[in-house]
C-alpha cells in the first residue's frame, strides 16, 4: 500500500544512481484519506479499486491539496568512515575532518501534494468511469548543510552533510494519470473494474562520490578526491494497469479486492544524463539509462455499515517491494548494455556498460488499516483511521535516500456537506516512524556497486494537513 509506504526520496546513485530517499514520498500517496480504500466509491477508486466507480452514480469532481512537513535525522558513526587517518598527508578522512564524515545530518522539508479525480456514470445505470491524477510513489528531499564546513575549500564537499554519500537532494517520484471504468452486475451483486495508468517516472538525484567509491575526502597529496554525481532521468511513456472487484453480500457489507500492477509491467527504463564532477577535474556529462522496478500492490478489505450512522473499514495491503532490488545506471551509448552483476557487486561476465549499480534488495511488506466513519449530523461526518505500515528496506541497504521503518499513521478527518452539491473535508495525517539503528554495511563491496557505509541511526516523522473539495452535479 503505497499510500502508507514511506517511499522515496532520494539517491541516488546513485549512486549515484541515486538516489533520493524516501523522501516525502510516502506522504504523496495518502490521497483521499479515509475515503481512499479498496471498497470506496469515491472518485479515488480509479486508483485504489476501479470497481468502486460503478457503485455511485452521477458526476463528481474532487480536488485536494495537502501541505505538511517531513523531518529526517541521520547520525553517522565514526566507524562508518572508510579510511580515517591521522593527518592530511595520509589522505582519506583526516583527524581534523572527522566531522565531515561522521555526526548528525538533518532534513526539514515542506511537503506539497496535489490530487484530483473525477467520476461519472455518463447517465448509464450500473456503469462508472473515472479519471485521476495522483502521485502514489515518491517525493523530494533536500538535506540541510553542515555549516561547520561552509566555505571550506580543503574539504569542499563536507558542507553538504554526512549523508551526502547517499543523497544531497533530489526527487524520485512516479505520477499517475489514471483512466478507469467499472460495471456493476446486479444479479451477482458484484462490480468489476479496470484502469489504465499513464505513468511518468522521474529521478533527479545529487550525491557525493569519488572514483574509489569510498568516502575519502582527499588523497595523500592533499588534493580533493570527493566529487558529485547528478542523475537526471525520466520516463514519460510508462504504463500500467489496475483492476479489481467489489462484492456486496448484503446491503451493509462490501468486500473488495484490487491489484495495481507494476509500472511498465516490470522493469522501467528511464533515460537521461549523468553529470560527474570529481575533485578538481572537469565536469563531464554522459547519456545514461536507469533501470529499476517498482512494486505491484494487492489490496483486500471490507467495509461494514454497522448502523445508519456508523461505517467500519478494514484493509490489508501486500506490497511486492522485493522487485526493487537495485537501481542500475548504464551507459546509453552502448547498445549492448546489460546490468548483470555478481553478488559481490562486480560486473558479471555478461554485464556491459554498467556505470553505477545502487544495491537495494528491498523486501516485500504489508500494511494494515482500520477506519471508521460516523454521521454526526445529516451534514457532518467524522472519520478516522489508524494504519500500520511495515518496513521494506533491509539494514544492509538502508540509507538517507530511502529512509523507511515500521510506522503508524493516525488520521482524523471531518467532512461537511456545505451544499447539496459541494462537500469539504479536512484531515491531519500524522506519521510515527520507529527509530532504526543499523550496524551492517552493504554486501556488495566491489565497483560499480560499492558505496560508502550508510550505517547509523535514522529517525523520521511527518505530518500532513489536507483540504479536499468534492463537487457533484
Amino acid at each position, binding site marked *: 500500500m503505497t499510500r502508507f509506504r514511506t517511499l522515496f526520496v532520494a539517491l541516488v546513485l546513485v549512486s549515484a544512481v541515486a538516489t533520493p530517499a524516501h523522501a516525502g514520498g510516502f506522504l504523496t500517496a495518502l490521497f483521499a484519506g479515509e475515503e481512499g480504500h479498496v471498497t470506496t466509491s469515491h472518485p479515488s477508486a480509479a486508483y485504489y479499486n476501479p470497481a468502486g466507480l460503478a457503485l455511485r452514480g452521477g*458526476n463528481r*469532481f474532487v*480536488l485536494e491539496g495537502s501541505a505538511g512537513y517531513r523531518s529526517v535525522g541521520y547520525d553517522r558513526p565514526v566507524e562508518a568512515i572508510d579510511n580515517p587517518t591521522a593527518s592530511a598527508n595520509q*589522505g582519506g578522512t583526516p583527524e581534523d575532518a572527522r566531522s565531515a564524515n561522521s555526526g548528525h545530518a538533518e532534513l526539514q522539508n515542506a511537503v*506539497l*501534494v*496535489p490530487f*484530483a479525480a*473525477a467520476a*461519472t456514470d*455518463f447517465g448509464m445505470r450500473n456503469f462508472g468511469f473515472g*479519471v485521476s*491524477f495522483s*502521485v502514489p510513489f515518491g517525493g*523530494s*528531499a533536500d538535506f540541510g548543510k553542515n555549516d561547520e564546513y561552509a*566555505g*571550506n575549500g580543503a574539504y*569542499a*564537499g563536507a*558542507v*553538504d552533510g554526512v549523508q551526502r554519500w547517499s543523497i*544531497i*537532494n*533530489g*526527487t524520485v*517520484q512516479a*505520477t499517475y*494519470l489514471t483512466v478507469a471504468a467499472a460495471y456493476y452486475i446486479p444479479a451477482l451483486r458484484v462490480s468489476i473494474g479496470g484502469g489504465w495508468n499513464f505513468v511518468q517516472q522521474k529521478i*533527479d538525484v*545529487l550525491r557525493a562520490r569519488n572514483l*574509489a567509491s*569510498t568516502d575519502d575526502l582527499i*588523497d*595523500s597529496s592533499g*588534493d*580533493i*578526491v570527493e*566529487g558529485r554525481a*547528478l542523475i*537526471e532521468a525520466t520516463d514519460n511513456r510508462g504504463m500500467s494497469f489496475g483492476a479489481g472487484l467489489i462484492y456486496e453480500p448484503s446491503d451493509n457489507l462490501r468486500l473488495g479486492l484490487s491489484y495495481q500492477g507494476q509500472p511498465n509491467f516490470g522493469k522501467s527504463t528511464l533515460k537521461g544524463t*549523468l553529470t*560527474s*564532477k*570529481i*575533485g*578538481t*577535474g*572537469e*565536469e*563531464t556529462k554522459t547519456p545514461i539509462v536507469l533501470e529499476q522496478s517498482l512494486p505491484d500492490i494487492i489490496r483486500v478489505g471490507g467495509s461494514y455499515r454497522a448502523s445508519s450512522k456508523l461505517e467500519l473499514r478494514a484493509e490489508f495491503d501486500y506490497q511486492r517491494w522485493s522487485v526493487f532490488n537495485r537501481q542500475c545506471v548504464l*551507459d546509453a551509448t*552502448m547498445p549492448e548494455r546489460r546490468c548483470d552483476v555478481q553478488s559481490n557487486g562486480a*560486473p558479471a561476465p555478461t554485464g556491459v*556498460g554498467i*556505470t*553505477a549499480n545502487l544495491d537495494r534488495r528491498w523486501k516485500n511488506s504489508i500494511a494494515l488499516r482500520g477506519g471508521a466513519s460516523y454521521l454526526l449530523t445529516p451534514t457532518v461526518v467524522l472519520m478516522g483511521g489508524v494504519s500500520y505500515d511495515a518496513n521494506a528496506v533491509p539494514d544492509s541497504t538502508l540509507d538517507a535516500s530511502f529512509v523507511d521503518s515500521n510506522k503508524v499513521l493516525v488520521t482524523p478527518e471531518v467532512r461537511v456537506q456545505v451544499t447539496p452539491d459541494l462537500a469539504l473535508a479536512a484531515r491531519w495525517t500524522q506519521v510515527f516512524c520507529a527509530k532504526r539503528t543499523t550496524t551492517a554495511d552493504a554486501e556488495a563491496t*566491489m*565497483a*560499480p556497486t560499492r558505496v560508502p557505509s550508510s550505517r547509523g541511526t535514522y529517525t523520521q516523522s511527518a505530518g500532513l494537513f489536507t483540504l479536499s473539495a468534492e463537487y457533484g452535479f
Partner: protein
Amino acid sequence: MKNFAFKQNLLSRSGLLLTSASALLLSGCVDPKARLHDFENLVLDATVYDAQIDAAPRDVPDITGTFYVAFVTKGIDPDMDHLVNLIWTFEVTKGPNGQPVSLNMNTRSLNPQTRQPAMGDTLVALNNVPISPGGEFQLDFKDFILVADANFTMGDLLLNQKLNVTIQSANVICAVVIEGAVVTPIPLDLKGSSAVGVRVPPGTVGNQLPAAVIECPQVSTMPDGGLPDGGPVDASIDAHPDAT
C-alpha cells in the same frame, strides 16, 4: 446531449490544468543542480598544466631501455590497488651531436596486484616522438584500452590522453596528463594525473619490480631500479611538470 458534451469538455480541460499545476507544485522546491554548482564553485579550479615543450636546452640522457611506470589517476588515492602499472620501453634516436632527438616507445599494462602482464592486454606503440632539447616529449594515446585486468574498475576502460614527459635522468622519467579523459564506461577527466617511471632490466615483472614510485623524486633520491647508474645522476631538473 449538449450538456453531456459540455461536461466531457470540462473534465478534459480540468484534467489538463490539474496536471500542469500539479507538476509545478511537485517540482518547484528541490534543485540538485544548484547544490552541484555550489560544490563546483567551492572546489578550486583544475590546475592549469604547462602543455608546452619549452624547457631550457640541456644535456639530455639516453633513456633507451625499459621503465616500470606507476600511473596515479587524478582524484583517486594512490594505493597499490588503484595504481595503474605499466611497462614502457624506449628506443631513442640521437642526432649528429649525440643528443636524443626522437624515440619509439611501446607500453604494456600490468595487473595491479601481481604486476604480471595483464590478461587481454595488447602492445601499444608510438613512433617518431620528438624529444625537445630540454628533454621533454609528449605521448599521445588515442583510443587506448586499459583492459579490465589492469585497472581497479574490473572493466575495460577506453581512454584518450596526452602526457607531457620529462626525462629526469637516464633512469627516471616523470609524466603528467595535460589533456585527456576516460571515454567509457564513465566519463572521467584525466587531466592532472601523473606517472613516474624508473628503469628496470628488460623483462622484469612481478615481485622483481621495484616499489612503485608515485611522486616525481628529487635528484638526490632517485631510485635506479636496481641498475648501475653508469655515472652520477644527471644535472638539475629544470622541467618539473607543474602538477607534481
